């Protein structure tokens, strides 16, 4: 892979997405062995810099680095200098002085990984920037879909919930459209505005408007703070109109996959029986997450070296 950074899926062409997913499939085996480690990135330094709380994504990146034998350091907002008023650029300058090969950044502001990518020589993976993108999540979602549907071409994926303010949705939309899938989105008017058509989405309203056609239904997490300032009415009404329960799921095809980027608000965007349903592939998403992140680290760091050697 020629790129230095992975900042989003907006500008990643189809062949490259396929290459990343194929590479992830090869790395999946590592996590299934008793000795879950390969020497691929021995001597390379990976710093993960998380300015927002994250358990799943941070653990996934950290395990991916360890399983590739990279030397990894994790910095989270609570232990970082951000609390002392240091700017992101100054934090990055200090990290840069310690010669990292790759920085993984999670930050509440869109464009912050882009700022580091253009200012420093180290590679950057965007692990979520504001409401913009979360490309490794998009890739692991596509890998999970591909495992079940073979190809994404012509398949229909429904994304339900706060699509406008979701970096997961944005990365999925960019990636899925590039791969030839059709994407339906549904959710409250405040979160699913017609403007989303510029991302290639077909904008619907209630979950019932998308279920019948969907090969995959991806439920987004509804954040409690979004109840403020009239964004949505009540958690109860949200569950009624936009949440997924068994009764609604019965209207979909019996093979429709149920996905969720986690963490789930059980009882709001989906009922517990849906989360644990046979069609739910939520934990497969998590499993694929490690493989996709291993593939990204390898492609951004390892492959270049092998070519040079």
């Amino acid at each position, binding site marked *: 892979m020629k790129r230095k950074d992975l900042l989003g899926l907006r500008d990643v062409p189809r062949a490259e997405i396929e290459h990343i997913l194929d590479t992830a499939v090869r790395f999946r085996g590592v996590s299934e062995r008793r000795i879950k480690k390969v020497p691929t990135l021995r001597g390379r330094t990976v710093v993960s810099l998380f300015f927002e709380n994250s358990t799943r994504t941070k653990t996934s990146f950290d395990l991916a680095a360890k399983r590739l034998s990279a030397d990894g350091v994790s910095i989270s907002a609570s232990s970082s200098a951000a609390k002392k008023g240091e700017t*992101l650029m100054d934090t990055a300058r200090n990290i840069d002085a310690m010669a990292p090969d790759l920085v993984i950044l999670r930050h509440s502001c869109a464009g912050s990984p882009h700022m580091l990518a253009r200012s420093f020589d180290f590679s950057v993976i965007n692990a979520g920037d504001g409401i913009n993108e979360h490309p490794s999540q998009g890739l692991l979602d596509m890998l999970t879909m591909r495992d079940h549907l073979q190809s994404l071409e012509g398949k229909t994926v429904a994304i339900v919930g706060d699509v406008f303010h979701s970096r997961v949705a944005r990365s999925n939309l960019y990636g899925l459209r590039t791969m030839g899938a059709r994407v339906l989105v549904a959710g409250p008017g405040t979160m699913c505005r017609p403007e989303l058509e510029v991302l290639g989405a077909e904008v619907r309203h209630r979950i019932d408007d998308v279920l019948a056609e969907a090969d995959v239904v991806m439920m987004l997490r509804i954040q409690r703070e979004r109840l403020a300032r009239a964004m949505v009415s009540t958690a109860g009404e949200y569950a009624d109109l936009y949440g997924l329960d068994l009764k609604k799921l019965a209207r979909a095809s019996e093979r429709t996959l149920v996905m969720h980027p986690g963490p789930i608000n059980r009882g709001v965007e989906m009922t517990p029986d849906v989360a644990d349903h046979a069609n739910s592939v939520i934990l497969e998403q998590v499993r694929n997450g490690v493989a996709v992140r291993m593939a990204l680290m390898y492609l951004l760091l390892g492959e270049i070296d092998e070519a040079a050697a």
Partner: protein
Amino acid sequence: MKRLLEGARLLDPIGGVDRVGDLLIEHGRVAAIDPGPVDAQRVDLSGHVVTPGFFDLSANLRDPGRTWLEGLEAGAAAAAAGGFTTVLLNPAVDPVTDDPSRVRELLERSTGLPVELAVAGAITVGLAGRDLAEVGRMAEAGACAFSDGGRVHDDALVLRHALLYLRPLGRPVLVRGGDPTLEAAGVMHDGEVATRIGLRGIPVAGEELAIARLGALANDTGCSVHVTGVTTARGVAMLRHVRAQGAPVSASTIALHTLLTDQAVCDTVYDSATRLVPPLRSASDRAALVAALEDGSLCAAASWHEPLSRVEKELEFELAEPGAIGLETALSALVAGTGRLETAVRALTGGAQVLRREHGLAPGCSADLAVLDPEAEWTVGEVPLASRSSNTPLWGRSLPVVVRATLHRGEVVHGAL
């Protein structure tokens, strides 16, 4: 000393002058056009354009307060370099210009500078939109206009009382057209680009609402209002509508917004230099601004000069302080944006009418002049700017028209003749 500027294109769109001729300057004033044989220092300006000096409606020189970002001296030099001869100081400095002693101090410190710095007093104490500042005393101290700068408020009762109180003072009242709650929720223009690159948007509805409200209150109170910072097509349409209802409302835009659009945020990959309030708008908004400057719906374009340093700008896009410098790029941005020098000059001299000043190339007017080379180009930042700050999305960009010289009261205050 008499000075005869010979052979230039004399261009004063508001005064209805556009022809090649000779301009005689005497005692700091325009003495005559084409005076015939006269004993004077002759300056050959063929190939150049002589226009009235530009008149800015909003520049923040960070003085007092953050003088390291600009200050009155550097700001006045930047203004002169941009062809401006009068600049209305934004009261949003620290401390805010909301008190007669601060008005007096600014006027005293402005004497002897290369351009005239006119002082706008704040309408509300601390620009907070709550308590009325001592506008009467500030008017007596020499404040020539009243404004809360770029700040917008949502208390209609305070605004109504302010307009009723200000009306008998007879000074222009400048209010930016924006809605504080809608602006607080976003960081760039709300539209396709924001949706694509994942930034929260500031909808055009805020400007539309504000202009509707200002129009209604101007009608209700009889107080003329000049709306600053109009940047949207809907804002322009609302402006025409409230004027058709008889509201005494005029309005201006921002030079940079006639050239750049929200696409700049995407093209520069979230460069905080493109973070502005009001934000860069869509391509159709930009086109509407150009049309409105041409048909006179918007009578002026301001520099909206807001100097900032790396401390405020080397940050995540959403956290960076909004603003760009504009005094030295206003003319070129307007020429590049509107495609017409006449439109650009009308937009940059229209501020004089807002402030009710005699201004132009007519005999008797103060010889505040800009001498332009319409064929030359320049690259922003190639030669150090006069401003102490360099926060502009136009950095490194090649732009048309060079200000060869600026004259204030007949004296050359920038460049050379």
